[in-house]
């Protein structure tokens, strides 16, 4: 597989570290994507991408704009069901269950995968408390005691509890941008997912808020498997264990973060991370 870039041929055969080659203990994979292809009105946006995400790690997906990383991320919780012209092929396995198989209830399994979006989007008509519990309340959970407990747990995990505990019934939109984003994280955590997908979670935030989000992610990975799309390579270096580089819808390289950034095997990767693109 080759691609022509600026007159030179670049080898596009994906370079994928099999994780077990670099670790002593056999790592368990929380999520496995196999041959995922996404077509928008017949035009492929993601081409035959396969990745394995080890559990309780952070994987960063990087690549230039339009390379398909957000599209791929949205396959992992079937968000494309909402998009009219989108067609998804391939398998996405979470704990050996294929999310796209016809036999399973997508809504039930989609709850194992939480998502946080680029622009913080807490529900505007709800308070902080109600926002966090929305995933549960609107699904029929009524027990106030349990809901209150979950609110406290989730806000603590998102590192927002101390800042809002005195007034949980304040409207969510009264919070600052960084706080709103952490609220969205708490809301996603409240449904007790196992995997957390994050689409450029800090790109709309100021540096201090970004730092807090990164600290939160680093704490969360002790209990959750996190996959984060980011255009900020330094952020990928700071917080991720594994990094996948996508270009024009294809996976070019997937390795331990440190290795990918200090010694990329694929020439295209080296060019991209060093800013020699475009």
């Amino acid at each position, binding site marked *: 597989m080759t691609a022509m870039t600026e007159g030179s041929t670049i080898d596009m055969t994906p370079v994928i570290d099999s994780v077990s080659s670099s670790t002593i203990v056999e790592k368990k994979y929380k999520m496995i994507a196999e041959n995922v292809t996404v077509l928008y009105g017949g035009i492929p946006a993601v081409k035959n991408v396969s990745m394995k995400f080890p559990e309780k790690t952070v994987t960063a997906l990087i690549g230039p704009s339009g390379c398909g990383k957000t599209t791929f991320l949205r396959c992992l919780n079937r968000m494309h069901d909402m998009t009219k012209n989108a067609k998804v092929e391939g398998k996405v396995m979470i704990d050996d269950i294929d999310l796209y198989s016809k036999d399973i209830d997508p809504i039930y399994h989609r709850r194992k995968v*939480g998502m946080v979006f680029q622009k913080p989007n807490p529900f505007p008509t709800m*308070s902080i408390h109600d926002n966090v519990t929305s995933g549960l309340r609107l699904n029929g959970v009524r027990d106030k005691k349990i809901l209150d407990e979950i609110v406290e747990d989730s806000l603590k995990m998102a590192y927002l509890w101390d800042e809002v505990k005195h007034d949980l019934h*304040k*409207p969510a939109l009264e919070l600052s941008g960084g706080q709103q984003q952490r609220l969205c994280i708490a809301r996603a955590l409240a449904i007790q997912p196992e995997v957390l997908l994050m689409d450029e979670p800090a790109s709309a935030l100021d540096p201090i808020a970004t730092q807090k989000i990164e600290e939160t992610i680093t704490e969360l990975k002790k209990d959750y498997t996190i996959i984060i799309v980011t255009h900020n390579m330094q952020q990928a270096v700071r917080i991720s264990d594994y990094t996948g580089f996508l270009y024009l819808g294809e996976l070019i390289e997937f390795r331990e973060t440190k290795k990918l950034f200090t010694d990329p095997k694929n020439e295209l990767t080296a060019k991209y991370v060093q800013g020699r693109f475009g």
Partner: protein
Amino acid sequence: MSTVQQRRQQYRALFKQNVERRLLIDKIVRIIVFACVIMAIIPFGSILVEVFKNGAAAISIEFLTQIPGAAGTGEGGIGPAIQGTLIIIGLASLIGVPIGVLSGIFLSEYGDNPLARSVRFFNDVFMEFPSIVLGIFAFLVIVLVLGHFSVWAGAFALSLIMFPIVARTTEESLKMVPVSYREAGMALGLKKWIVTLRIVVSAAKSGMITGILLSISRIGGETAPLIMTILGSSQFFSNFDVPMDALPLRIWRLSLLPYDSAQLQGWGAALVLIIIILGINLAVRYFFMNKRRKYKLFGYAINGSR
């Protein structure tokens, strides 16, 4: 002198002339716009003033609660008309609002297909129908069939006027809710109808209420359809199957009588109608004001927990 400096000098000379002229044009336009606003408000203001001036004298407890007296005597009141207006608005809303809202939701959330497109088109056409035509339609379909004028017919006619407006404004309000809230709801594993009703509609409440109130204000003053369906009466409401009075009808009847006292009562009825519509607007707005506004208005005093 470098080219950048040359260019700077060149363009700066241009700006000087330009700016003065543009500020002048700005002022002129602003005056014109202001004048237009005044021209638009003056008739509206003067109507209110006239109605108030002429009608205030007629208001009294007797006026508001009694049935109409003999023509020309100046006795009696518009009690049945007030009651009738409230009843007919209420009934028409009960029919028109749910249908309108559900259509609006359908068009907005499930509306990317040929069926929805044709529904939307016919909806827009329907909105422009003259109300007298809708009145005649109700007359043919209900009054003639049942054999008598009735409240049902009136409510039906008014709901036909209502629901296209409600459907349209509902659809527009829902479309204004950013996609990200739907995505967030979906990512939480919520079913589509829950996301639509509990999250999207909730966020679009304000716009939807405005649409509903607009339609209520519209039908509150419709006269032609009422002539053909509820006909009017001098008695209080008794039965849904018989004619009933309503303020627009009463105003019309009173204004046609040659007596001064009737004219006065007519003005009074007009004033009452305006106040009722205004009152409904304010009451509904307050009741549905979302937590955020209440919070801003009343601060920490309100505990909005469910």
